[in-house]
Structures are given as C-alpha cells and as structure tokens.
C-alpha cells in the first residue's frame, strides 16, 4: 500500500486531537472526521491509534469524557478539553511553530 500521506508525524496526533476539541466537545468519530476534513484528506486517522490516544490524553488529565445525546438521540461518549489541556495545546502549538519554522528554514537553505 505505499501511501505515506496518511501517516502522521510522530507525536502530533495528540496535538491535533486537542486542537479539534478546542472548539467544542466531540465524540470519537467526529474527531476523526474533523481531522481528515480540515487537513483536506491528507491525514487519515484510524481507530487503532485514535482510541489509545484518547486514553492517553484522558489519563494525562488534558481531556475528560462527557456523556451527551447524539444527533439521533443515543447517549454517546464525548470528549471535552480541560483547562490543563488548553494550556498543553498552547505550549505544544508554540513548540510546533518553532520547530516547523526551523525545519522549513533548513530545507529551504539548500
């Protein structure tokens, strides 16, 4: 299957999930969809990495589960961002900005 485009840079999935949740609480599928849509189909997140990431983030106290009715009125597990998650996103975004700028500089210099 030689497609590279769908795989994420190591460690960025957590940041993307946090960013997605910054607006409103969402459930698992919604998050996956949102990431795929916004990235213009570049990133495709499969459940095998998405759910362990939820577990990690939850354990770190950056997101918390909330139970809400879905559009078709079934109770589903939504994830909401915590205050600490917001801080984490901020610092990760800054760090990412610094790193990607640096990488771009390096790549363009040659």
């Amino acid at each position, binding site marked *: 299957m030689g497609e590279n485009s769908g795989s994420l840079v190591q460690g960025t999935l957590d940041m993307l999930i946090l960013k997605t949740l910054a607006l409103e609480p969402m*459930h*698992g*599928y*919604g998050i*996956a*969809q949102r990431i795929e849509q916004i990235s213009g189909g570049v990133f495709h997140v*499969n*459940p*095998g*990495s998405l*759910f*362990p*990431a*939820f*577990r*990690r983030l*939850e*354990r*770190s*106290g950056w997101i918390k589960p909330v139970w809400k009715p*879905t559009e*078709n009125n*079934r109770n*589903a*597990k939504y994830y909401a961002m915590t205050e*600490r998650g917001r801080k984490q996103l901020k610092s990760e975004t800054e760090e990412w900005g610094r790193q990607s700028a640096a990488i771009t500089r390096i790549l363009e210099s040659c």
Partner: protein
Amino acid sequence: MPLWTNFTGGLRALFRKPEAERDMDDELRAYMDAAAEANRRAGMSEADARRAARVEMGSVESVKEEIRGAGWESALEAFWTDIRYSFRLLAKTPVFTGVVLATLALGIGANTAIFSLLDAILLRSLPVSHPEQLVEITKSTLTNPLWEQLRDQQDMFSGVFAWGNASFNLAQGGLVRNADGLWVSGDFFRTLGVAPAAGRLLAVDDDRPGCAPRAVLSYNFWQDHYGGAASAIGSTLVLTGHPFEVIGVAPRGFFGMLVGYKFDVAAPICATTAFDGRRSRLPQRSWWWLKAAGRPKPGIGMAALKARLAAMSPSIYGASVPQNWDREMQERYRKRVLEPFPASTGLSFLRKQYEDPLHVLMAVVALVLLIACANIASLLLARAAAREREMAMRQALGASRFRLIRQLMTECILLSLGGALLGLAVAQWGNRILVHYLSTVRTTVFLDFSPDARVLAFTTGIAVLTGLLFGAGPAFRGTRGSLTTTIKETHATDRGIRRRFRLGVVAMQVALSLVLLVTAGLLLRSFRNLAAVDLGFDQRHVLVANVNLVKGQTPAAFQQIGDSLRAQPGVAAVSQSWTTPLSNQEWNTNIRPDAPNPPKGDAALVYFNYVSPAYFETMRTPLLAGRNFSNQDSATAPAVAVINETLARKFFPGLNPVGRTYQAEGEARKLEAPVLIVGLAKDAKYEAVQEATLPTVFRPLAQIEGMGTSVNYEIRAALPVDAVTRSIQKAIADVNKGTSVEIHALAAQVDDSMTRERMLATLAAFFGALALLLATIGLYGTLSYLVAQRRVEFGIRMALGAQARAILGLVMGDVVLLLIGGLATGMMLSLASTRFLRNMLFGLEPRDAATLILSAALLCFVCIGASLMAARRATKVDPMTALRHD
C-alpha cells in the same frame, strides 16, 4: 496532577473492569455506527456502509488491546498473569522446583545468616531513643574521680553517664551461678531514654554516696527468674552475698551499651563499696573501670563538642591526678584530652576481633551462592531445551520475545523469592549456631538477630539478584530459536555453542570451588597449627575451681580447702594459683634485672602469677634448672621467683639466671626490693594460644600481698571429670557450706582462646564442602545432559565400530579441558584473594603451596570421579534404541 489522574484512572480500570470494558465497547460501537451512518449518507447501501465501517475499524479486539495497552494497569495485569502461569508451571515439575528451592534456601540462608551476624555486630543501632545522637567520651576507660569531674564540669550534654561491667554470683554457697552485672551511673537510663517494663529505673538520686542497694533487672532475667511476675518489684535479690532491692525492669531488648553482651542486673556505681571491702574503688585515682558516654544538647555538633571537651580537659584531668604517680607521669596525665566519638551502634569488643573474619565469611557464602546459581542456571538450561518447541510455538502465535523472556524471568524471580523465604528460616537456625560458635565457656555472646529492615532488604536484594543471575542466560538462550529450525531440529543435532556455554559454566564453578577449598584448607591448617601448639602445660584432665570465700572466712581456709581436695578420690594433684593460663586475668609490670643492658620501656614488661609449690607438677610444666618453691618460701622468708625461658633469654641473655635477682616496678614506677630467681621453668602460654610466649615470673602464693578472697585451684583428675566435679563440690562444702565455687575444665579455657579460629575454620570447611558438593552435582548433571543429547551420535559411532574406550575419550576430552580451564582460573583467583586471610592465619602463609596443590588435587579427583560416572552412560548406549528414538 497528571500522575494522580493517571493513577486513579488505572485503578478504576483495574477494579471496575466490567464497567470499563462496557464503556469501551459502547464507544467503539458508537464509532462504527457513526462511520456507517456517514457512509450511508455518502450513498452506500446499508450492507456496504456497515462493511466499510468494519473494514476501517479492523479487528475490534486488537483496537481494544491497544487501548488497554495505553495505561499502566495493563503491565500490572500482564505481570499478574505471568505470576499465575509461572506458579502453575512450577507446580507441574515438583522435583525441579524442590531442588531449586532447596539449593536457594541453603545459599540465601547462609548469606542471610552471615549478614545478620555482620549487621548485629557492626551495623545495628542501639535499641534506645535517638541512638544517632549518642557520643562515646574518649575510647579509654575512666577512674571514678575522673568520671565525677566530667559529670560535674560538663555543660554541653543534656545527659552523661558511665558504666562498668560486673559479675555477680546468685548462689549462696556451692556452685557459682553467675549473673552479668552492670554498674551504672544515676543518669544512665534517663539519658538513653529507655522506659521501664515494670517498676522504675535507677535515677540520679539512687546513685549518691552511701546509697541504699537497689537493682534493676533486665527483661530476660525478669522473665527467666521471676516468670515476669509483678511481685519481683520490691523483692530482695542477693548478689554475691549482698542483698539488693529490685526496683524495676529494663525494657525488652535493652542490653546496655556493649554489643554482644547482655546484663542481667544493673546496680548504681555507689553500691560498689559493699563489694570492695576496705579498699573502695570510688576514690581510687588509678583504678580504671568505667566507660562514659553522653547525649549532646540539641544543636551542638561534633566539631563544637570536640572543641569544648578539649577546652575543659585540663580542668577535668587536673582535678583527678593520681597522687602516687611520679611527677613526669602526672604531667603527662594532665595533658590528656577527652575526645568524642559517635556511638550510635554502641561499643563492642567483638568488632575488632570479628570484623575481618565476617567479611571473609561474607565473601565465602557469596561464592557458594554463585556456585549454586550456576547449578540452577544449568537446570534451567536443560528445562529450556525441553521447552524449546513450546517457546517457538508461542512466538509463532504472536508472543513477542520480550514477552516470553518476561514470563521466564518471572518464574526465576518467583523461585528466588521462594528460596529467600525459606532462606530466612534457614538463617534463623544458622544464627543460633553462629552465636554458639562465638560464645566461650565463660562468656555467652548475646546478639539481637530479629530481622531488621536492613537484613530483609539484603535478603530480598540477593534473592532478586540471584533470580536475574541464574535466569537471564537461560531465558535469552531459550527463546532464541526460530519456529522452523526448532521444529525441524532433533536431538541428534549437536548444539556446539550451547555445549561450550554449559561447559564454561561448570568450569567457572570449578574455579570458584577451588577458591573456597583453598580458603577452607588454609583456615583448617591454621587451626590445626594452633591446636598443635605446645602450650607448655598439659590441659587434659585438669579442672580449674575458682573459690570465693564468704564473710568471716580467713585466707587460712584456702589451706583447709586444698587439704580437703587432696583427700578426695580421683584427685591426682592439687595446686593453687592467683591466675590460670589463658584466663584473661593478668598482672604485669616492668622489671629490671641485675644483668647488663636491661630492656627498657615496653620491652621490660613481664607477666606475673602467684602459685603454690605443687603448681608446676599439677600443670606438668617442667622445671629446667634451679629449684621449685617449697613451704619454706613463706611470707616472712626471702622473696624468691621462678622465671620462664623467654624471660631468661630476654633479660639474662647468655647468662644463668638462677641465683640472679630482679626488681619490679611498683606503683609510680618505684623499684621494689630485689627478688631472687631460684628456678627456670619451661615456656608456657600466659594470655593466648596465638601469642609469642610472654616473659613470665612465678612467685610463691604465700608471698603475695593482699591475698583477696578468691583463688584458683588446679586439680588433675584421675577419674572422669563429672565424678571429680562432684568430689570438688563436696570437698569445699565440707570446709564451709557457704563457700561458692566455679568449676570448669582447663581445656575449655584453651578452647576459648581459639574461638575465632575455630569458628572460621569450621564454617569455611562447611562451606568448602558445600561448594565441592554443588560443583560435583553441577558437573555430573551437565555431563549427563550432554551425553543424553549426543546419544544418537554415540549410537551411530558404535554401530560403525567405535569402541567404548573411544566414546569415553570423546566425553572425557571435554572434562579435561574444563578442569584445566577451571583449575587454572581458580588458582589465579586463589592467589589473588587469599592474601586477605593473612591476619587470620597462624603458622602458615596465605600462598601456602601444599594447601593449594592439595585442594586442586581433591577437586580434580572428585570431578573426574563424577564425570566418569556420567560418561560411562555414553558407552552403555545401545545403537539400535538410540537410532530408533528420534
């Protein structure tokens, strides 16, 4: 906080498992539903939409597995699974498990036992409040006036105290029953911060001049002699004929300041007057019998304490100068300085004597454990070979190699922890034996062996370490095979590398065993040398009776008792003396001979004993020249002496000492009147078997100044010792029923003098034999295994016409290589390590060639024997059965 959410989340997952699982299922189902819904909206049919969603999700189980894996609790769960699985496996092979556990119990038990001894003697803090604050004040002993000056002048301790040892006789007449006593100053118990188990403890007011005789019992003494009854408080206890009122009991486990010894009864220092008679020790300025310690006030550090003590030393020493010393010595006395030393672990005579031996023993048991580990590793390798297919199968089914190794290591750690648990029990038993070895006939060593945190940590530590040590190799090797090669493999395959590894392990065992055998050999020969020393007297069949007179008996009673003893059946000879050889009671002073170039200073020190004329005959110490004492050498007759050969050589070189005189230095180094030397006796040991014989002067007992109320009788028995012991008691009771006597064999005194050497030699021999046994088992087991593995090869060779001899040669070739390698390594290790024994060896060098060669020969002999037994099985292979087997 992340740690906290992580922790609680994990706990919830562990303890609310069904709920957590349901959550996970719901969440994944919701995801699938949402995905299917999206697909439907994109125009797929119902069935296609569902299938696409399922394809995207992949295996639900593996997603769940990944989610579980994201939390720490999954590792815990896997660990628990490993433990249960290991238990089942070990229970299925009871013989293997039993052998491993027994080996480990011995190995770890020996290590724990020696370590607890080391801990009890060297490391353990005193069982008092805040022992780390305690400070010993000067290493030397103090006189009572000096102690009183220190007590009254000091200003930086919240409490200071002094103590001295005593021995009380509980019996009133007849055989002595000794109680270990402690003279303590008033503040002893308060400063140490111990609370009474019953009644009250001695306080400052109990230690005033002219005090009432009061005593505090130790907890064990209270239990043993009073059954722990409350009525003990207020009762009267007679100590060496003096009544004391029991006022309380010290707490359980409290033994005072001296590690290795306990006290039964503690009495205030002021009460010594009743025991000393006319010459009380309290005002004596040159009677050194007290030790002092204290607890500094809060905030006073060691440096400040040292400076302050140094500053007040001139005043403290200045007020307690011994008046009868000469000016020069008094000046030196005034310049002494009190120094503080940390005393959190108490003080002990055992430390200096046993520190090195304990470290040697620690190394010895560590080596034994290492050899045992090699044996277990060998067993595990064989087990791993039998489980090779299982391992390959599990790997093929998806278990990672790491997972398999983890499970194998869990097995090993379980085994070693089980071994450690048994080992603790073995150690408890071993400790009792060890204390027995440390104790002498006259002193019982008392040590606290209750396992403390340090011992438990040590045992757990070595258990885990040994588990890793014997488990790691087999675990890595056992999981290396790939499925296809393993399943194709048959027993006919000669696994060359594995064979070399196994032979290497055995060679290592041989090397370590050699080190232990050499150590044991050296210590045994050293002990034998010691036991073979010519003591200069014949201790066999001699009993020593130490007699204490009661009030009202005069020294004339000694004569009566002697006559009464002589009249008993079975008594061949009786003599009297002030001290007996190797009894630790000694008297020495400098002498000046009437010969040219007399030795000066410490070289002029000689040792004294006062004996009756029959002494030399009873002890069988021959007189070489001159005459023996006779009854004419009375108190009023001219002073005479018999000297030993060493003294003659040192003070009268090349001269005939008989007929010459010497002068002894009395108090304040004043020379006393000349004493005429009338005889020369053969050299005999005075202080210890190990000593280079000390220059000794014998004087007639009749010419001793201040006889005292105690004397020793040497009784040469012509009948069994028990019978004679009874006769002695009767003879003494015949004179006066109130006289108390303590009787033991002179041989016991000699044995006591070799306690340390005996313990070392016995234990080293025991562990050396154990190492030899373990190495032999290891060799035999490994060879048997290798022979069994090569059965098909041997079968083919024999079918092709090979002779039994040739097959034997094949196997023994390995053994010879292994022995050469092992012995060479062992030799080098021995040569490098035995020098640590130098100070413990008597009459031989650490690199004693004979010991080295004998040990190697013994090891060689045993190993070849064991290998021949195993190798002969190779020649018994029946070609047909062997070939049909696989």
